[in-house]
């Protein structure tokens, strides 16, 4: 045995008498010590489709919201003599009956569609998380009441309610966001509740209670952070669902009204042109919705795999 450095014998266990492998030298070695988030991003980046989708989606969002600077023509700029023509060098996505550049129109319409998608996902996720967390944590009658309310919202025919509500409250983007969120939080509530039901039995929750933490603190500091994976995945999917529902509503005539446009609205306006020379008016908004929703879904897939340490991807 080599000479032991002249070191006071401490009664504190040190690296020397700590038998476990995770000690001293690992700390400076960044390849070994990885935080949860580093692992998370590593797994996410391994999901190729999700990464491509994230890039495409960010690009779509950027292009739409930078429309005032990027759009080739001003909004609602009409060229009545031109009329509806197909894609060309001047008008990449063609023009409509009033000679409006479809690329420009789609960029502005995308703002509304994306805004609705993101806002609905945000609000319904917050609502759902709150309901689910309270129901799961307090159980018994709180759970019963909240879950029966959730069931009630689940069984009402959403489209009919939407149509009536929009008739009554008008169809501004804000109203549509609130109504869609009000009809979309139940799915997240159920997922969060089921997660919380299992997480609240974990010993660290017991330990938090034993250290004097209040219910509010346990829910916000322990339960919800440990549920963040499923919450984020479902929030992503809620974006896609909201964009599609908004399109459906517009198609049925309950969506945003001109001069405000959304992709769904544009699709609805071009409804009669299937199989005609003006079919491009249908294809581009349809494609935009398709690509956006697909991207969002792939990102959701990627998030799900990244949050699940057992996933093999």
């Amino acid at each position, binding site marked *: 045995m080599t000479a032991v450095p002249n070191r006071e014998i401490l*009664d*504190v*266990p*040190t*690296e020397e008498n*700590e*038998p*476990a*492998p*995770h*000690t*001293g030298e*690992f*700390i400076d070695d960044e390849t070994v*010590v990885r*935080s*949860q988030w580093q692992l998370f991003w590593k797994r996410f980046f391994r999901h190729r489709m999700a990464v491509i989708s994230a890039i495409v989606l960010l690009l779509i969002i950027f292009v739409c919201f930078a429309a005032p600077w990027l759009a080739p023509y001003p909004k609602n700029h009409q060229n009545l003599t031109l009329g509806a023509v197909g894609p060309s060098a001047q008008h990449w996505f063609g023009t409509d009956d009033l000679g409006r550049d479809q690329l420009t129109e789609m960029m502005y319409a995308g703002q509304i569609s994306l805004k609705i998608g993101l806002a609905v996902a945000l609000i319904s996720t917050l609502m759902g998380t709150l309901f689910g967390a309270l129901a799961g944590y307090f159980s*018994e009658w709180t759970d019963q009441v909240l879950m029966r309310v959730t069931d009630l919202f689940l069984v009402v025919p959403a489209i009919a309610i939407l149509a009536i509500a929009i008739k009554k409250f008008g169809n501004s983007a804000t109203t549509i966001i609130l109504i869609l969120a009000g009809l979309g939080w139940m799915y997240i509530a159920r997922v969060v509740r089921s997660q919380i039901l299992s997480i609240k039995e*974990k*010993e*660290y929750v*017991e*330990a*938090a*209670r*034993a*250290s*004097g*933490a*209040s219910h509010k*603190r346990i829910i916000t*500091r*322990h339960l919800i*952070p*440990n549920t*963040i994976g499923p919450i984020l995945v479902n929030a992503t999917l809620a974006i896609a669902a909201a964009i599609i529902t908004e399109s459906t509503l517009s198609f049925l005539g309950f969506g945003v009204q001109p001069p405000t446009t959304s992709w769904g609205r544009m699709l609805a306006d071009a409804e009669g042109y299937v199989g005609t020379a003006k079919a491009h008016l249908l294809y581009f908004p349809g494609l935009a919705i398709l690509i956006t929703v697909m991207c969002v879904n792939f990102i959701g897939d990627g998030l799900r795999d990244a949050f699940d340490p057992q996933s093999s991807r």
Partner: protein
Amino acid sequence: MSTTDDVPVDELQSVEPERRADVPVDAVLSVRNLRVEFPSDDGIVHAVDDLSFDVFENEVVGIVGESGSGKSVTSMAIMGLLPKRARISGEVFYRGRPISGLAENDIRKLRGSKIAMVFQDALTALDPVYKVGDQIAEAITVHDRHIDKSVLHERVVELLNLVGIPNPVQRAEQYPHEYSGGMRQRAMIAMSIANEPDVLIADEPTTALDVTIQAQVLEVMERIQERTNSAIVLITHDMGVVAGVADRVVVMYAGRAVEVGNVDQIFYEPHHPYTLGLLASLPRLDEDRSDVRLHRIKGQPPSLVHVPPGCAFHPRCEFARCPDPCSTEVPQLRALGDLDHIAACHFAEDVAKLRPDDLRTEAS
């Protein structure tokens, strides 16, 4: 704690607001006639039955017993952490003040600051999404919201250092999964002593660890006790741990205390056949007795739904005289000589004459 649910009204009224005569003045924690029952499909589970004990300042009380003897339920009952369906009666006193009837908000202020708990499995008792340092800080901020950030950080590092975590500054920035098992348990201890509690309840703190780490963790707990003068309630099924650390011992069987005494009394002069049996079943390293078989307590611990009548231990007891009195009359805890050494056995006088070796038989 939801004691009010099932306690008859007259019993509630009998709880004097003033200090009770049978609660010692200098006890930090006193448990009186604690009874915990859980309704189940098969009947009522009598988890803890008429348990009373005191914990004084600066002492380690070991609670030993087999799995299912009510040790953990007792600790949860003290903390007021039992599920609502549990029926609880009896009282818990903190420094002579009854705390078992307190509202959730009031008892919460005691948890962690005055009475803290170390959990058995540190792997699951640490939240995986927080850095260890942040979790310890959390335990402090729960009771002191306005503590200065830098003071807090210093305190966390100091605590980690106190429990013997090497490189505490870097270690505070790591997640529980980057810790080894022994370090997690020590981090857990750091968390529970963060507010310098008067009573530390350690529920089998060494069960999930190998003997080397066990020794380290126990040593950490002893060192902390010297530093903070807190009382420790050590719940374990390991007689060896109790012998090494505890000052006084409560031996539990089927939810009841069968023998209470200081560690020498329990280990050298057991008065209860169960304690005697446990000791006789321990291998001894200090003498070469390869020709002697270890004792075996016959049978299984009883189901807590159907606790045997009379003395719960009588079906397994070598000294039982059935039916009378062992299977008909519940033996009360009584002292033979020293007043602080009590055992619940009808024939404690006879048992007291025996030593663990007397139960061992020659190997064939």
